[in-house]
């Protein structure tokens, strides 16, 4: 019999990776990938939406058994939980309003108000590199609220994952207001080495299952098939 597990996902919309649709169903690249992994590993997975900053506490409180919510593998997080191998990796970028030119650097962001999603690697990165030069760092519960505030003129910049930012820039709202300012300089110590499935430290069996599943899904072509529906580039990274 298949093992039942609960997988936690950020309850805020994070397109194109995971977001609820109008029928209440969760859709997106990461959701499809989750199905693929679970099928491969013979797991019966139930999706459990949780606030992003509550994912790790929930995992450790055993309310969920794994996290698949674009959570990057970082040293800081590894102190609390364990991760599978990465299943995607994308650069980190900064966007801002159209017509205002600036570089995605500490110098370029001087005096600006920058927004990030709470508890993310971006929040940590901004804290380390930009906190001194920007006017204010605003932290949002969900990514789409940050996007919305940028469109509403309450932010001068957002740092986030390039893919999700691009997705936003493709919407009517994003097209009208904002544009890409460029990628930030990489810092693997903070930005991590890709996105993995988060599991409890003692749960090595589950971790191994996910590792095997990721390998298999990549090898048998499912990974590319799903990715092609969403992206025109290599989401797995190098």
């Amino acid at each position, binding site marked *: 019999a298949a093992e039942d597990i*609960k997988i936690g996902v*950020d*309850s*805020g*919309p994070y*397109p194109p990776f995971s*977001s*609820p*649709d*109008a*029928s*209440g169903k969760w859709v997106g690249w990461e959701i499809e990938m989750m199905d693929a992994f679970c099928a491969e590993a013979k797991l019966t997975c139930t999706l*459990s*939406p*949780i*606030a992003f900053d*509550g994912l790790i*506490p*929930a995992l*450790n*409180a*055993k*309310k969920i058994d794994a996290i698949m919510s674009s959570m990057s593998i970082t040293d800081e997080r590894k102190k609390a939980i364990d991760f599978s191998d990465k299943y995607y990796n994308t650069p980190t970028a900064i966007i801002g309003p159209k017509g205002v030119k600036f570089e995605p650097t500490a110098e370029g962001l001087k005096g600006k108000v920058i927004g990030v999603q709470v508890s993310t690697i971006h929040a940590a990165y901004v804290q380390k590199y930009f906190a001194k030069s920007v006017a204010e760092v605003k932290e949002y*519960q*969900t990514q*789409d*609220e940050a996007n*919305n505030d940028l*469109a*509403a003129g309450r932010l001068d910049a957002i740092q986030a994952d390039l893919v999700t930012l691009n997705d936003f820039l493709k*919407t*009517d*709202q994003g097209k009208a207001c904002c544009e890409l300012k460029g990628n930030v300089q990489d810092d693997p110590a903070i930005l991590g080495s890709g996105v993995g499935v988060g599991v409890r430290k003692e749960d090595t069996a589950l971790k191994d299952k996910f590792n095997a599943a990721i390998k298999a899904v990549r090898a048998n072509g499912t990974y590319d098939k799903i990715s092609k529906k969403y992206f025109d580039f290599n989401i797995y990274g190098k």
Partner: protein
Amino acid sequence: MGPTSFDLNLLSLWSPGWGGVLLAGLMRSLEVAVGGFLLGLLIGIGGASAKLWGGKVLRDLLEVYTTVVRGVPELILILILYYAGTDAVNKLMLVLGLPSVDISGLAAGIFVIGVVQGAYSTEVLRGAIKAIPAGQLEAARAYGMSPLLSLRRITLPAMLPYAIPGLSNLWLIATKDTALLAVVGFSELTLVTRQAAGTTKAYMMFFLAAGVLYLLVTLLSNVILGAIEKRARRGLSREQAA
């Protein structure tokens, strides 16, 4: 589509309208509210009895419970209980050698709201029991009623008219407190509203729609509670009712 858009099709009950999702969220909110309210009532009955007739230690512990719950923001209690509560249950199961239980979001939500409501219920019921004229309880004793019988036949029904206004208030608070579960990602009405708003960018419309739903619940509750209260107060004259 901007935040101003009022595309009412988005509220349609069927996909691509989000109406169905909102209603499902409302149902979840109501489930938690009802469950939490009832659990709170249960805790309240026990707590009030213990506070009135219990031992010193029990009374003091309950005092700590009600004081803490009423002095700490619900949002924080919900966060603590939401994580710690289930954590504690599982630790307990581990100690007892039982497999860890799968606590659903619903159960956790009910538990959290219930613990918060229980503190207030305790006070409401205790006040109500104390409001019963002492002579009525004495009459019950004088006619040979056992303590249990007199609790069932006299104390509880006689307390109702005094308790119902407070309990009504608690019910309304329960319906609104469920919104706080949005912060831990529990898919009740406020959270699904936020998801719908975030996805469609029609923030104004969805928040207003949810507001209307909450208001309907409140108004409907008021009507029903008013009727219940009137019935419970049928034995009270006007001066007493004031």
